[in-house]
């Protein structure tokens, strides 16, 4: 095909958008809503995963030691812990450090601890960080075999809940996304079919005057692609401002965030470029291919 013909067909595609503006607007709106539904679901799932991962990272285990344990035994235990598999770091907190820390955290500490005098009731302890949280049960079993341990405080149950929750959110979000994509494809293909349907007469005429299928399809492809790109761009802008406003609104109430002990939402800059590219590529592809496929039955003349 000559360059001049390609130029003509491209112009025809652009012109068709205006000529069939009602159907173009309808296709654009359907595509925009579909992209936004999928995009916001992705953003929501990404944030949920970040929250869960943030909670999961609180993987600290505290090992309280028996009363009256010797310094040499403490050093030996520290060495053993350091070389225990799945232990990332080991920090020793003496009973004195624990008492100072407690005093610093409490407002009326002097009054309260005045009754105790020099008698410190707190035990010595190790604080260890676990490398792979999913393997925590095995690691704790191994640590439990060591002598001189009084009790071990670990968030095992909470971590198990979070790991299961992450898994559950992953599956549910995948199902929701698949359903959304499928529903969007059906709606978009119906919209493009309706848009092509009203031009079946035009396609038939083109076939009778000897136009090739490619010559007929190219303007439809251009038209679908441009509508898709435009819907992608507008969806990106809507997501950017919508997300920024939503985060601003939710961040004002810090209770939930502090309960979850997470730093906050994913910054908009971290997601918007990838999402925009996805929007534009998916919008252009689905719309262009959908429109071209809808012309097929009329090309059989």
């Amino acid at each position, binding site marked *: 095909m000559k360059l001049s013909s390609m130029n003509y067909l491209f112009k025809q595609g652009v012109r068709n958008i205006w000529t069939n503006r009602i159907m173009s607007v309808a296709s654009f709106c359907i595509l925009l809503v579909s992209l936004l539904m999928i995009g916001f679901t992705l953003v929501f799932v990404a944030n949920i995963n970040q929250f869960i991962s943030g909670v999961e990272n609180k993987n600290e285990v505290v090992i309280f030691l028996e009363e009256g344990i010797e310094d040499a035994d403490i050093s030996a235990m520290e060495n053993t812990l350091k070389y225990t598999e799945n232990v990332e770091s080991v920090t020793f907190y003496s009973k004195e450090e624990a008492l100072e820390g407690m005093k610093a955290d409490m407002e009326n500490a002097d009054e309260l601890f005045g009754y105790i005098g020099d008698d410190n009731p707190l035990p010595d302890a190790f604080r260890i960080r676990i490398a792979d949280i999913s393997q925590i049960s095995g690691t704790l079993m191994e640590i439990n075999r060591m002598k001189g341990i009084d009790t071990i405080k670990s968030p095992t149950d909470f971590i198990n809940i979070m790991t299961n929750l992450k898994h559950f959110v992953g599956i549910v979000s995948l199902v929701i996304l698949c359903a959304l994509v499928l529903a969007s494809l059906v709606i978009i293909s119906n919209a493009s079919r309706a848009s092509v349907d009203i031009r079946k007469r035009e396609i*038939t*005429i083109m076939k*009778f005057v000897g136009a090739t299928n490619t010559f007929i399809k190219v303007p439809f492809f251009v038209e679908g692609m441009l509508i898709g790109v435009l819907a992608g761009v507008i969806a990106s802008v809507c997501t950017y401002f919508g997300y920024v406003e939503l985060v601003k609104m939710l961040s004002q109430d810090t209770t939930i965030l502090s309960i979850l002990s997470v730093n906050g939402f994913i910054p908009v800059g971290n997601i918007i470029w990838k999402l925009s590219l996805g929007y534009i590529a998916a919008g252009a592809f689905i719309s262009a291919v959908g429109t071209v496929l809808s012309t097929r039955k009329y090309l059989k003349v």
Partner: protein
Amino acid sequence: MVELRNVSVTYSNGVDALHDINLKINDGEFAFVVGDSGAGKSTLIKLLLKEITPNTGHITVNGFNLEKLPKSKAHKLRRTIGFVFQDFKLINTMNVYDNVAFVLRSIDAPIKYIRNRVPYVIGLVGLKDKAKCYPNELSGGEQQRVALARALVNDPQLIIADEPTGNLDPKNKFEIIELLKGINECGTTVLMVTHEHELVRYFGGRTIRINAGKIAFDDYIG
């Protein structure tokens, strides 16, 4: 040249549309095809345009053996045929110039050729001043002239006109046939399908009458 040898068409619903048709139309001929509704005229046109394929028989149109021509290459055959429909079938979103130029654009004709050829053909059918008008701004007769210009622009070997006067008033009917006769005099084969016997009797010439899927009459009248 158009040639049909022992052509039969039976539709999937069992209707026997054409039965053992033998027909030859030589280059440069003007032939009327007449017959009542359901006689098989439309089926004949569909065969010539390779819209359908016969159950049996052989068809040759403008040197194309339609048996061997795949559907995907039907556009090559159609580029040698100018087609005029009863309902004009103009693209309403294009003006007269673009409706005619479209045919040449679809075959990748050079822009310079399109710029010269299209105004010339629009002038031939007497619509020089209406090149920028849209179909809905034209009368029925003018729309059919645009359809004729579109059929002519590619300098086809054969023009098939399917009831081209069906939607026109008597004055325009005569004018359109006069135009088709003029085109024929320049060497283009014309096959005009009609059920208006008075027009056929008035203009005369080769007349093929199809009745119940068979050729009932094929001779020169008038």
